[in-house]
């Protein structure tokens, strides 16, 4: 038996023995996810148990080096672990934005001290991170940001405003883009880490069309940030920022894979009914769902391939834009179809039966998929310029 086959079998056995039954049920709402952080809340003890067990194996970050608390697995082993978790229906023990974005970025650009300090806490879910990129005047044109950081010898003094900062009011730390040189647009940006409890940080929630307020306006008034919290070189934060965005795009596109969601066809059968031969009694909806499923399955092939290429460092950096663009547009289509298939059931906003309007709120939330992490238009610009090498204006 090959080493990988042995690994598969021992992994399968371990998961079967250690993943609590509750953690194998489909995810039905936000509360089923574990976000961690200093103020972590667990809906049920099984969530904590499952997290602790996976942390002990290093499997919340299976492919990170063991010296930072990771699992030290090869790309092939990581893939096997994910496949086996998928096969058993195991939930992800930790839903962490920082894990998929800041983690890889620190591994590449962080100092040894920064890695030692932040990576273990990140993968244990002890610290919840938020992203301070966008500003009122700098959305798609992110590099025009103006939040400034003044050099005060041993520390920076940060002042300015961020906007759309997801979970800023719940987060413990922020990774933040600041301007350290006003004479150059792209080469005057630096990448800083700081604690959200530092004096001078203020957050104000913004309510979304889904009724939730997952993000905030974030204000900085003379926030004192130690110099050791600078990631990468001074004024070279744009490279760090772009590297992180590549990972963010990859993770956002994953929303499209729809694990644990009711299959569209099944859902439509329940609400619409069937013909005597078992087909959906709305042939046009049936056709739309079927053609959508073709695209969804094809997309899962491309994401699998992309992750493989990324792990083997063969992917074009702009390839993440292809995945982000296609995956988020696809996810929006999925939710449009779910609204169609769900009929009036899907419109219920807050009944017990509708689990607090889970469908309709999820549908509304997906509209952000093609905006957050860079809009679809921005992704298309990137593909056109960097992959197709089309000329500039």
């Amino acid at each position: 038996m090959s080493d990988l086959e042995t690994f598969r079998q021992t992994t399968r056995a371990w998961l079967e023995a250690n993943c609590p039954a509750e953690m194998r049920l489909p995810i039905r709402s936000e509360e089923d996810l574990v976000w961690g952080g200093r103020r972590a809340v667990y809906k049920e003890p099984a969530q904590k148990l499952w997290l602790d067990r996976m942390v002990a194996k290093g499997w919340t970050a299976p492919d990170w080096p063991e010296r930072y608390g990771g699992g030290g697995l090869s790309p092939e082993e990581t893939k096997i672990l994910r496949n086996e978790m998928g096969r058993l229906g195991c939930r992800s023990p930790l839903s962490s934005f920082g894990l998929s974005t800041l983690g890889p970025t620190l591994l590449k650009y962080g100092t040894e001290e920064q890695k030692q300090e932040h990576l273990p806490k990140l993968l244990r879910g002890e610290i919840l991170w938020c992203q301070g990129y966008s500003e009122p005047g700098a959305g798609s044109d992110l590099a025009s940001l103006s939040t400034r950081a003044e050099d005060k010898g041993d520390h920076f003094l940060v002042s300015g405003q961020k906007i759309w900062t997801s979970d800023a009011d719940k987060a413990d730390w922020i990774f933040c883009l600041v301007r350290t040189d006003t004479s150059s647009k792209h080469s005057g940006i630096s990448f800083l880490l700081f604690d959200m409890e530092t004096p001078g940080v203020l957050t104000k929630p913004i309510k979304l069309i889904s009724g939730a307020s997952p993000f905030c306006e974030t204000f900085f008034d003379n926030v004192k940030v130690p110099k050791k919290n600078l990631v990468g070189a001074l004024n070279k934060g744009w490279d760090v920022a772009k590297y992180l965005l590549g990972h963010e795009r990859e993770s956002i596109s994953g929303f499209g894979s729809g694990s644990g969601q009711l299959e569209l066809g099944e859902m439509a059968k329940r609400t619409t009914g069937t013909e005597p031969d078992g087909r959906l009694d709305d042939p046009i909806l049936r056709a739309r769902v079927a053609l959508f499923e073709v695209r969804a399955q094809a997309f899962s092939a491309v994401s699998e391939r992309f992750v493989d290429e990324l792990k083997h460092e063969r992917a074009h950096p702009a390839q993440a834009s292809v995945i982000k663009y296609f995956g988020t547009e696809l996810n929006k289509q999925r939710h449009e179809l779910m609204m169609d298939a769900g009929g009036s059931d899907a419109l219920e906003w807050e009944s017990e039966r509708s689990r607090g309007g889970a469908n309709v709120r999820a549908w509304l939330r997906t509209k952000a998929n093609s905006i957050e992490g860079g809009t679809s238009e921005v992704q298309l610009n990137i593909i056109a310029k960097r992959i197709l090498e089309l000329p500039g204006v």
Partner: protein
Amino acid sequence: MLADTVRPFLAEQASVSHMRALRDADDRTGFSPELWKRFAELGLTGVLMDEVDGGLGLGHVEAGIVLEEIGRNLTPSPFLETAVGAVTTLKGGSATQRQAWLPRVLAGEAVGALAVDETARHRPERIGLHAERVGNGFRLLGEKRFVTYGHVANFLIVAARTAGSEHEPLGITLFLVESNVANLTAEADRLADASLAARVKFGGVQVSRDAVIGEIDLGFGILTATLSALRAGVSAELVGVGSHALAMTVGYLKQRKQFGRLIGSFQALQHRAAHLYAEMEVARAAVLKAQQLLDGKDERADQAVMVAKAMSGMASALAVQEGIQMHGGIGMTDEYDIGLYMKRQRVLAELFGDADYHANFLAKLAGY
């Protein structure tokens, strides 16, 4: 690497000008037998054939490399029908059948074709061609259409009904029929892309019991395996056609000036080209996945093949349509190649089931 051999070979020997030359000479063979010999010399006719039979013993990923290049160059060739379709069917055939045909296929001396469709749409689960038992053999009566290379094939693989009614998979039997038998006529029709497909009439064709491939009434299994191989192959060819159309279009956008600028600098066109690129990437990955699952004899392979055929059909359709549009007026001319890609895409998209057929099938499998 196979690709390193195939790419220059086809680009040099069988580019679009080769296809144009055959078309303009009103060649009725549909391909160049000399070129087919070269395929054989390179071993390509045996790409899917087992090594014991003298083949390369490679898989669908490799056959796909050849087909993608065939697509890119619009090469007229019976490779798909013979080296993919017939060879896959013969894997389920008798030793006698294999010994009779595989060496000739390998040598580039025999072309095989698959006769399945009876209506204008691909409906392999609906076979009506009648195979009546006569003595120790069978008598075939009926008509097949859209049999690509059927008019020049040395042997045909024919799906016929030996029992049951038209809509049942049980009762379908596959026959290996030599094309020079009595009461068989194959009439070639030229299609939109200048390729030729035959209507094959079986006016009481007598075959012996030895002509049966696999078991009587149980031909659907081998037919399905053959169709999966063919569909994966057509999907790879579609990826080649679509990729080349995209490349031509992007090339044109970088060179054509209007309003004092390269038209490729207009965002309206950049976004469409980038969208198209994303669609093609997804299609390419779906095709590769299907080929890998087929090679791994994975139970999910047939389904992945349907996804691949549907997705590559949709993405390549967009590629050729956008290709014509972004070329402006020149895209409408016969002299410029982009139109040839659009016509070829149409034919391949229909061959062995279009996107709707496969999506419908997937829906049925999923139970809705």
